[in-house]
């Protein structure tokens, strides 16, 4: 029997594939790479493309929109991205997040009033406790 290696393909939201393979192909930024068992440790960035897993009888295809490939002598981990990540796209997201925050910061006070925060939260807690007490009394 041919040598096999354990392969895990996961995305942040779910597990995509987990099993053994004879060989794995991944789209690296510099070109496609094929990984056999007992490969030297490798940590690489993937570009959008397809990951092919060759098991004994068949070849499986998985589309990834980028991510990270980690190779250990006996295990390969593919951390797949769920979306296409590019610097400028991420940058746009950053701007959006900042804008959302800034819009709200216009009416900002100069200093954080911890005393007020504590008081406010304590009040909310007291209200909750009061409701609890009322319930207990109602049960009796």
């Amino acid at each position, binding site marked *: 029997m041919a040598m096999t290696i354990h392969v*895990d393909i*996961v*995305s*942040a*939201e*779910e*597990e995509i594939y*987990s099993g053994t393979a004879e060989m794995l192909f991944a789209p*690296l*930024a*510099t070109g496609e*790479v094929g990984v056999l068992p007992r490969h*030297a*440790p*490798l*940590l*690489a*960035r993937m570009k959008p493309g397809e990951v092919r897993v060759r098991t004994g009888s068949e070849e499986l295809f998985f589309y990834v929109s980028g*991510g*990270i490939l*980690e190779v*250990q002598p006996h295990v390969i*981990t593919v*951390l797949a*991205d*769920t*979306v296409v*990540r590019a610097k400028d796209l*991420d940058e*746009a*997201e*950053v*701007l*959006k*997040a*900042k804008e*959302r*925050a800034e819009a*709200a*910061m216009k*009416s*900002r*006070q*100069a*200093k*954080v*009033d*911890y005393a*007020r*925060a*504590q008081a*406010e*939260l304590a009040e*909310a*807690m007291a209200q*909750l406790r009061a409701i609890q007490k*009322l*319930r207990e009394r*109602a*049960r009796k």
Partner: protein
Amino acid sequence: MAVGKEIRKQIKSIQNTQKITRAMEMVAASKMRKAQERMQTARPYAQKIRNVIRHLHEAHPEYKHPFVLERETRRVGMIVVTSDRGLCGGLNTNLLRTAVQAMQEWHEKNVDVDVCNIGSKGFAFYKRLGANIVSHASHLGDTPRVEDLIGTVKVMLDAYTEEKLDRLFLVYSRFVNTMSQQPMVEQLLPLPPAEEEQLKHHWDYIYEPESKDVLDDLLTRYIEARVYRGVMDNLACEQAARMVAMKSASDNAGNLIEDLRLKYNKARQAAITQEISEIVAGAAAV
């Protein structure tokens, strides 16, 4: 019969409220199950990326990423995860109390805090408080996706890389079980160093393209995955807390209705008794 019209009206209105709270309870219960399932499906990624990070600690990279280097703390960042909606008991209050406590501790050491809010409840709170909110995301819905968080988290990571922040924390509610949710403050950055300093054989990864680029990508994803996990946990917590809160609201409504019904029946009986005694008295007089 005109007796107890007000009481009847009151009972009716409480019954209507009870219907709503009961429906909300059931919705929350089913949403909680779904949120828990999603928590489960997100687990493999978190586990795998943690393994890779652990391997990385065992390797001996010649390049030290800023995310692993400890430096003097002048300013800290906090990512605070809260729910978007209320009616979920003390969940947000408990969380914000923990967050404010942590903030105050830093404040006493003369360290300023930048806040990043995920969820509109915490956002509204910090806005009123006047904290320095640098980024914000809300209304992620019941199925938050990683891409919804990328920008929000990157603001904090960029600030860290530019040394505007020296530490980054994640504050979220951890889902223990349906009845209990635990507010947590976890340090995201700098990454805690590996504990075991064993003398293993010296090895390092082959990096493709450059170690800096790959580590950048990997560590960014690691932080995102942790924040994502926090958001998923918080979602499950929110639904669980809402379910419990709505259940107690329905129970309360039930108690109220019971009391009112007793009162109503008593009033009705008294009215009948009075009427009979009036008739009897009238008959006796004839």
